[in-house]
């Protein structure tokens, strides 16, 4: 496919299949940090689905969460604050054979990266985007993020934020061509795993907001919902995220929600009394930009040269 060296296509060889095979450097997040849970889920999914490490690329920005790629044994791109998505789209643009996972934080994605987030959703290339939302800037030591709740204190708003917090789900649902929008929590491994799995299976940009605990700076933010799963609302549906029965039973609060119903998804997204988890919305047949960006990757050098000569000749004197 990429020219002369096609061996890897012909002979895949034995695939990696233990958790260890997917582990990179030792994770350096605080004990109890929700990022560990997400990493575990991704490691397990990679193992279960036998991702080829050499064709998986984990792309991130800058933040605690964006250290993620270092803790994987795949290819990784730990780039600039807020700019994971353009890089991921660029990788994907001409390499449809690569599996691209994006890890971003609430500052990374919803503050400095806002423009790329909105447009990546619109492009709907085949990416799995995991937004690790701890409602705070972790790495830079506690500043208000766009998702920080009104009144929450941080180092930049010592008396409490005076902003209405941004709802990444409601914004994403406002973008035409959004094709997969889900929410999950780091403290329920089965749901976390099932959601990431469904997102990864989805063809197009899957956007998953993970409510992520930051015991270091915002221990209290998700603690109530962790202690009391009543504050979490499980969205269930045959078309949604599928949980095994034992796992499902842990959620006292459920609502049947058809992820094809955008209006209902938006209403659920707006709820402030509970954290809805599961699949808000999935759209079939959304336009896929990467169906266009890769056109021509199979041209042979000679084809290119011939075409170029034809074009050049239009400029002949």
């Amino acid at each position: 496919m990429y020219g002369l060296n096609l061996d890897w296509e012909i002979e895949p060889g034995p695939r990696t299949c233990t958790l260890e095979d997917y582990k990179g450097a030792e994770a350096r997040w605080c004990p109890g940090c929700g990022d560990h849970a997400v990493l575990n889920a991704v490691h397990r999914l990679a193992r279960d689905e036998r991702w080829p490490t050499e064709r998986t690329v984990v792309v991130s920005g800058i933040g605690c969460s964006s250290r993620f790629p270092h803790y994987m044994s795949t290819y990784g791109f730990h780039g600039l604050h807020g700019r994971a998505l353009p890089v991921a789209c660029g990788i994907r643009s001409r390499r449809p054979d690569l599996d691209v996972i994006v890890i971003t934080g609430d500052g990374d994605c919803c503050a400095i990266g806002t423009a790329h987030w909105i447009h990546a959703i619109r492009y709907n290339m085949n990416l799995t985007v995991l937004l690790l939302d701890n409602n705070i800037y972790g790495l830079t030591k506690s500043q208000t993020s766009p998702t920080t709740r009104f009144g929450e204190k941080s180092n930049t708003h010592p008396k409490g934020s005076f902003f209405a917090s941004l709802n990444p789900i409601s914004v994403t649902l406002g973008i035409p061509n959004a094709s997969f929008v889900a929410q999950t929590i780091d403290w329920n491994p089965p749901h976390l795993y099932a959601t990431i799995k469904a997102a990864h299976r989805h063809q197009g940009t899957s956007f998953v907001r993970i409510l992520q605990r930051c015991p270091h700076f915002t221990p209290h933010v998700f603690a109530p919902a962790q202690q009391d799963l009543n504050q979490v609302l499980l969205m269930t549906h045959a078309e949604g995220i599928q949980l095994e029965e034992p796992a499902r039973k842990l959620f006292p609060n459920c609502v049947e929600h058809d992820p094809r119903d955008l209006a209902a998804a938006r209403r659920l997204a707006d709820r402030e009394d509970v954290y809805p988890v599961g699949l808000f919305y999935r759209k079939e047949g959304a336009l896929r930009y990467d169906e266009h960006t890769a056109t021509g990757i199979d041209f042979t050098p000679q084809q290119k040269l011939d075409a170029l000569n034809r074009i050049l000749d239009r400029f002949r004197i």
Partner: protein
Amino acid sequence: MSKELAVASGFSEHRCILLPVDQHIVEIVSDSGEGAQTCGQMFGALCAKSGFGVWTVEIIPAEIEPPARSRAGASGNRIRIGSQPVTNAGDCADLVVAFNEQVVYSRIDAGALRAGTLLFLDNCWASDPDPSIRSMYAEAVEDFLRRGYEVSEIPVQEQCRQYTEDPRRGKNMWVLGMLCALYDLDMDLVRRELAQRFARKGDAVIQKNLALLEGGHNWTVKQVERRFHVPARKPAQPMVVMNGNQALGLGIMAAGIELCSMYPITPATSASHFLASVFEQVGGFVHQAEDEIAAIGFAIGASYAGKTAVTITSGPGLALKTEFLGLAVMAEIPLVVVVVQRGGPSTGLPTKIEQGDLLASLYGSPGDSPKIVLAPATIEECFHFMVLARKLAEEFRGPVIVLSDANLATGQQPFPRPSPSLSWLAPPVDQNDWNPDVPPFAWDPKTGLSKRPVPGQKGGEYVLTGLAHDEHSHVAYESAINQRAMEMRSRKLAVLRSALRPPAVHGDAEGDLLVVGWGSTLGAIEEAVDRLRAEGWRVSSLHLRFLSPLEPGLPEIFARFRRVMTVEINYSDTPGQPYIEEGSRRYAQLATLLRAQTLVDVDCWSRVPGSPLPPGAIVEALRPRLEAITRNREVESCTA
């Protein structure tokens, strides 16, 4: 080709009122929207195809939709033609065709006319229903005569009415016919060109335009006594003609670059327009991003994944790409960045030429960001430097900035048709297994060069990072690792420099004054130097293509001249103005670089007119300096 030329000269034999000229500068100016630009572009291309040397410059109005008959609205083209290759736009026009008298004033303000310039002026305004227009016109004609132009009032609009109901939209083709007659072009060639150009618009359009064209041609042959003949040279090799942005686009394709990731910005955008219209034929793709940051990020992503990419922009876009450029340096990501310079700072003069982004290219990124910076000096080089830049980006594993400018971008020039070869194309992405013992930054301790694994290569899995890192791409904060990695990245420039040849001197290898330039000023500087040498001055010039690293041998070359100075289209303080002293004077950008690197007292003459520097202006700027140097030389030899 050769047949066309033969026909052309056959045609000219039947006319005896043809004045042979070696070169001529023609301008055609109209209100914006009246099509003088199309006319000028076509005339330029036709002259090139007729075997003339050609250089064109667009005359671009300052406003989106300027009012009719206003100075601000002047739109058109300057076409300098000659028997020999033409290397710059020259000084004053020999012949101007103007659709109204006000746009002539705009050209007068720009210093484009001189006593003796032939001025063909549409006379429709003499009979305009509006008396104030009539009198403006009459006054202007008188004024033009007083200024010594040779004014011919010609019935453009009146003539056009024979062929079209809306003469405002037809004049330009009639004038094209007129110019073809004035310069004795082969009408068969012209007809073919016109038919081709309007092919997509259908037969009716072609016929109407042909009628206008023939009308203008016939009228001129009958009515205009003094016409010109430029002896065409049969070029030794096949030639092409195009503008610099087309050359960039073609060069990108010839380099095997697969992706152009951009955000629109004048004067860079037309390169992407051209690419968008043809790129798919070579399997390439244009990505228009949501902003310049995303544009470079997308290109960097593609490059990380093994596909060479280019991002094209201009000053304000370069500013926004600064941070990602730093990442490309830090993580050694190959990338070609084309900057088509325009007038700055800030939004500045978006459609006008300046060479103001040199220092920002070298030093824009915070921290130490050694990168390669090139500047093509001709449209031909715009093509070839794309192949060069891609290879350098990959070989030296980092960003390569290519500085073009608004003048190259929109000017047209014929040059030998390149013969693209397979070896110019980027090699296919290597997907063989990677030896896991080789780290992703296996810096050669001497050269700093290393090979990179690309996703898909088994065993090469690594995490690219913009943090300080060791050769395994592991984040590292140790002093020694940081020092070493910086050394490795910087070393690459010295290695590249060691592979470069000292630049050639135009003129004698020693003398009183050496003029150093870069970018699109090549032709104007060399023409100025040639003129001064013809006057007997001991002046030479040298033109740099590599700005980072600087080409070698400069101190040795400089040492053979009494004085060295740069001529640039960017800002420098002019000595003698209030508060400007040695020590506080801010130098032109290349002069600043050369001074720091060579410690030679490199002077500069630089201006920011928003237009190319005419060779005559350079001559006028250099002559007093040469006089002063000569005086000093004489004083020295007296006292010696």
